[in-house]
């Protein structure tokens, strides 16, 4: 349950190894009594996110053990499109980033509606703003997730459950090691701060960093020929 300062008592991180996810849950206002449950490949709630039955079982067990105040969904396969250009890698990314995550959101939001409280934080991406030649495959998986999450957030109104979306740009982490650093890059720690701010924000969407909100507006308004040139830098 939330405490009197509206801070969560029982928190689950799906994608228990995610650097961004860990950065968010560890930067919540300090509370020694908080239980943080890491859901990853190992541990009490071991989960292969692409296994439908495992998803159903783990979410059931998680909520049967007690109310969950916050679920951070930080599973995802990252990759520029040279990596996702093989069919196998592309299908895996669609499975993890979209199909499995959407199913998790269905399961989690159903259980949260029963308890009539709870917050879900979905990690989307700046990459979903507009297709670029070098990452439209990855971007499309996040675009699908983002679209679904916005729809779900709307249907949750009045249920006591809230859903927030974090859209980070380039985050300097182990996952992006070796990649060319994009403008407005932030550290994992900084991204975590934006994630915590997203939970208290009145807005559905929080950009990390905030300036990306305006960059996205510009990106969307550019004519295709100009956009191609810029994105090919």
């Amino acid at each position: 349950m939330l405490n009197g300062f509206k801070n969560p008592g029982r928190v689950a991180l799906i994608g228990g190894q995610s650097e961004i996810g860990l950065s968010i849950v560890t930067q919540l206002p300090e509370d020694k009594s908080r239980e943080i449950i890491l859901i990853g490949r190992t541990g009490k709630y071991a989960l292969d996110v692409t296994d439908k039955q495992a998803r159903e079982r783990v979410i059931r067990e998680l909520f049967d053990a007690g109310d969950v105040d916050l679920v951070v969904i930080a599973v995802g396969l990252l990759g520029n499109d040279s990596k996702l250009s093989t069919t196998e890698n592309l299908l895996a990314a669609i499975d993890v980033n979209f199909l499995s995550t959407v199913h998790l959101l269905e399961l989690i939001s159903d259980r949260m509606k029963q308890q009539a409280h709870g917050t879900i934080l979905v990690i989307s991406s700046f990459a979903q703003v507009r297709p670029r030649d070098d990452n439209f495959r990855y971007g499309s998986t996040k675009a699908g997730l983002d679209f679904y999450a916005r729809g779900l957030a709307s249907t949750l109104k009045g249920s006591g459950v809230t859903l927030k979306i974090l859209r980070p740009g380039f985050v300097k982490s182990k996952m992006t090691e070796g990649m060319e650093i994009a403008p407005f890059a932030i550290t994992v720690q900084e991204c975590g701060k934006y994630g915590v701010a997203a939970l208290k924000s009145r807005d559905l969407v929080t950009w990390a960093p905030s300036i990306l909100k305006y960059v996205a507006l510009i990106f969307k308004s550019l004519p295709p020929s100009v956009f191609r040139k810029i994105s090919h830098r």
Partner: protein
Amino acid sequence: MLITDPIPVSGWGRNFSSLSKRASISSIEQAQELLAQAKVARGLLPVGLHRSYGDSALNSGGTLIDLSALNGILIDPVAGTATVGAGTTIRELEQAALEHSLFPPVVPGTGFVSMGGAVAADIHGKSHHKTGSFSQCINWIKVLLASGQIVQLFPTDDEFWATVGGLGLTGIILELELNLREVISNSADVREVRVKDLSAMVELLRRSDADYEHTVAWIDLSGDYRGRGVVSLGNYGSQKVKVRSGGSSGPSLPSIGGANFITPLTVGAFNELWFRKPLKHGTVALNKYMHPLDGVNNWNRIYGDAGFLQYQFVIDEGGEEIFERLFAGLRSLKAASFLGVLKKFGAASPAPLSFPRPGWTLTLDYPTTVPGLEKFLQGFDEELVAAGGRIYLIKDSRISHSLVPLMYPEIEKWRSIRSTMDPAGLWQSDQARRLRLC
């Protein structure tokens, strides 16, 4: 029976809310009917007037049972007892009892507390050093168990003491009988004394307990945080006074658009005025004396939309040094309390979850927006527990569940009695979930 759709409900602190259905019960039969249909899932919780500050009377995703219609009062002037419904308020009981020159021996700072709530929190008042807590004047309670069975419980029963202070988690308290005390009039003889600091306050309260039925002190925790204040001492009076009859006790605080008016500056100014106000010396109407909080309705709105929390703890006699550390910490946070109250408790009741026990109890109110307050109080909770103190659960919305067994060492006994009264876990509350009580 009226059952609403899920609606947001908050405690008196208004610092958070949760969605629950609300079933209004107008008879015992209706309560039984509700139980017959109930599913355990998110459970049921009997509630009173929502004067608990935090989440004791919230049940997110479940159903609250409003018993305010069970408000009968039957006074037996010969025996000096009252049989009351769970929904009867302290204020209603006082008015009815005074007609027979009787009065409830234990009343809290507000008259807007239901009988069911008074038992479930085992409330106390300014008379605790003489009378003990509310349960000490009860002869029996009638409780509707989760099974649908109605039982009459006496102070010789374990289930009686599990229900006293049991936060509504053992069953629905339907009715009870309590002993009233004789009074000569509807007034109190009051004497107020200004004191310059905490040690003078402690000393005066100690000295006055033998001579006064009611003792309490208002403590100024702003400015230099030395704990100056006004000690109020009272006995039942002999002179009849005129009182306004009827409904509301005073003006209502209008909605003030969500802003918080409690800042170090406003509290400092108010406390300065309050400290300098002319002292009472003489006869005061009992209801005004007993319920100073009822002077303004909805006073809790003054903290704005973010709400506030009340921190009340008890520490053994001799453990007063902890106050110094608390005051120093609050001073460094610039956390100024609008309503600070110090009182010396008498004997404890046998209820495992009853709060009062011999020692000093301090009550403070703070807006939840004070920077650093959450972390500071977490640290202070641990110091308090190490010093043998505990926090009043009916006021709480924030302590760590791991501290509860240290504050209430008999909780295991309570759990085992509770589980025999409600094996399936039908009675649930947000506080019980947060503090893992059951």
